[in-house]
Structures are given as structure tokens and as C-alpha cells.
């Protein structure tokens, strides 16, 4: 392996931040896909602080509105999802690209592989993107995605979620994750959600219903902040109680 002075780092090392068990047995697809050998740690000076920068040309004016662009309105519960992209010191990450994708209100993705017998919605594609503003804030208008069955185990259903992809300032801050909705009864049965072993870290994946974000007579509002790591080989401190 590496030279003797390099620490052995396993793919599940909690120093990466909130512990994600990459070979979580409850999630069957990890079996043949999660790395099964120790990771190699780069020397500290190898930390690469750069990453791609996306300008306004990457985003069209209506890309943040998943309910727009079709002949009619999509079916389902209209929602606003907004929050800030921050670094671990709470500083906003400005003008960074946020991409999302999701199932429709019936729990069906517009994807050829999705065979769930729920209807496609001709007025819903399920993809959006935006750049954060000067306060690091993103904002999407969409419909609440439905839960859907998957083949992981008998009677397996995913809690409702929206997939998020975020770039941050450096390539090593790159994050792909899923945002959930508060109080979902499927949480306790979902191995993907539970692959994050620390309940406090899991809670960071759940959005918060927010009445001030809610627009009267029009859409419910959810707030969800995204915190990106330093993207360094060093540990990312986790928020302490009472800190």
C-alpha cells in the first residue's frame, strides 16, 4: 500500500464529516460498488483549492421554477424550497451552482428506467438549477415529490426527497445529496437515510417547514441550508451541543 507514514483511511472514515457508511448493508447496491480497499490520503500540500466556476450563462431565468415551461401546471402540492449554501464557518458561498432533480407528485421520475406504475405528468420534467445569490441563497419552485417503491427489499419505499448537487468553491467541496421533508413516516424504514449513522447528522438532511417562506394562497415553504466541508484531508468538525 502507501508508505508507512501514511495513515490508513477506510472509506467510512468519520473524519470526512458526518459519517456515511459507504458499504451500508441495508442498501443492497453498495455491495458491489462501494470501494473495498483503504483510501489513499494525499499529503496536506496536495489539497487543491480550485473548482469549476459557473456563470450566468449556465442558468436560464426560469431554470429555478420546475412548475414553468410547460403548457399547464403540474399536479401536486406547489412548494418553495429555499436555503443557503454555507461553509463550515457559516460564510455564504456566493454564485455557486445548485442542481436538483426529483420525482413528480405521484412518485414517478421522468426516466426510462423508472417503471413505477404511477402516472407521468406531462407538465413536469423534474429538473432545475440556479446560482446562489450574494447571501448564498438558492430558491426553487416545484411540487412536493411523492414517495415511491424500489426493489431494495420487500415493500421498500423511499421517503419523499429532492436530489441536490452543489459545487461550492473547490472541487473537493463537491456534494451530491438528498433533501427530505419533516415528519416523513418512511424515515425509519429507509436504508439510504440511515446510511448516515449519526442521528444529528441525519437531521441535517431534513428541511424545515417555514410559514414566513410560505406564500399565502399559493405555495408552502421549506427551508434547508447546505453546509459544505473544507474539502481538505483534515477532519471537518461537527457542531457541538451548546456551541
Amino acid at each position, binding site marked *: 500500500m502507501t508508505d508507512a507514514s501514511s495513515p490508513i483511511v477506510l472509506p467510512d472514515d468519520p473524519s470526512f464529516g458526518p459519517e456515511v457508511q459507504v458499504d451500508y448493508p441495508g442498501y443492497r447496491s453498495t455491495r458491489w*460498488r462501494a470501494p473495498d480497499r483503504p483510501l489513499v490520503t494525499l499529503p496536506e500540500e496536495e489539497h487543491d483549492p480550485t473548482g469549476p466556476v459557473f456563470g450566468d450563462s449556465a442558468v436560464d431565468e426560469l431554470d429555478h421554477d420546475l412548475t414553468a415551461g410547460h403548457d399547464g401546471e403540474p399536479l401536486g402540492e406547489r412548494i418553495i424550497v429555499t436555503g443557503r449554501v454555507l461553509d463550515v464557518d457559516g460564510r455564504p458561498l456566493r454564485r455557486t451552482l445548485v442542481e436538483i432533480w426529483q420525482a413528480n407528485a405521484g412518485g414517478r*421520475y421522468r426516466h426510462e428506467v423508472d417503471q413505477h406504475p404511477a402516472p407521468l405528468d406531462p407538465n413536469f420534467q423534474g429538473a432545475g438549477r440556479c446560482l446562489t445569490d450574494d447571501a448564498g441563497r438558492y430558491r426553487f419552485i416545484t411540487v412536493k415529490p411523492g414517495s415511491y417503491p424500489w426493489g431494495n427489499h420487500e415493500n421498500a419505499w423511499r421517503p419523499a426527497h429532492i436530489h441536490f448537487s452543489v459545487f461550492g468553491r473547490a472541487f473537493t467541496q463537491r456534494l451530491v445529496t438528498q433533501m427530505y421533508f419533516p415528519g416523513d413516516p418512511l424515515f425509519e424504514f429507509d436504508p439510504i437515510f440511515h446510511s448516515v449513522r449519526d442521528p444529528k447528522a441525519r437531521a441535517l438532511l431534513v428541511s424545515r417547514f417555514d410559514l414566513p417562506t410560505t406564500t399565502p394562497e399559493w405555495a408552502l415553504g421549506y427551508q434547508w441550508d447546505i453546509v459544505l466541508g473544507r474539502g481538505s484531508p483534515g477532519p471537518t468538525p461537527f457542531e457541538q451541543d451548546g456551541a
Partner: protein
Amino acid sequence: MTFGTTPSQTVGPFYSIGLTWPSTELVAPDAPGALELTGVLFDGRGEPIADGMVEVWDAAGGRWGRSGTAPEGRFSFVVAKPVADGGHAPHLDVFVFARGLLRHQRTRIYFPDEPAANDADPVLSALDEREREALVARPEGAALLFDIRMQGESATVFLAH
């Protein structure tokens, strides 16, 4: 006070709804030095992973690209060899995403026509011979080949990040 970082979750099988860009060309195909970089993403049984995604970042040149692995596990980019930068041999940073990967994995691609620079590279020189070879692309005609293997004896070397 520090904020807890948001945990990673798998990209899942349907990422192509949201993450499809015409972004496989880091340079134009007719640019000087442009070459095809291609490979197959394999699981631990040697089966191609057809619902994965690969991103490459040329830090020295500020160029980024993204390729899906549909339909047969194959990803392809048009790249130019990055310049050597700060004592590093020319390389691309690589991230791998897939259903079944709860966190994306990081690796690097080095270039086979840079043996002296590769020997002096601080990352490559910290590896044993098998690992070093696994991070150097192979020439195949005019293209470069870099297969990514998630598991097993010939697994790709993944880097902590």
C-alpha cells in the same frame, strides 16, 4: 462555532434527469492537443456500471467536464493534457458517482507520455507500483483509456477527500 456539514447521499439511478449537460468536451475536438479520454466504470463483479457518472477537473487549466456512463458503463471526454503545475505531473482530478455509492469517490488520471514528471509527482511517488500504474491512463490508438474499477485486486486507487 462551526456548522455540521451536510452528509452525502447517493446520486441514485435517475441523476440524468437533472445532471445532463453537453459537457464532455473540456476542449474543442479540433483544438491543438485535443484527445479522447475514455473508459468503463466496473463494479466488483466486473459488470459495467451503466447508471454512473464521472466528472473530471483540470485544475491547471480551469476546465471541467461531466459524462454519464450509459449505456454500457462507458464515459468519454475530449481533453487536452493539463500543464504541469507546482511540481505535479499533468493530471486530471476525477469524481465517480453512482447508485450504490453513498458518497462519491475521488481518483486521478495521469498521462502515460510523462514518465519523468510522473516519477517526480508527490502523489504517485507515495504509491506502490500497482497503485501507480492504476492511476496512469493507457494509450489506445489516438485515445487514452482509463477504466475505473470500484473493487477487487485491480481496483482503482481512490483518494481520501
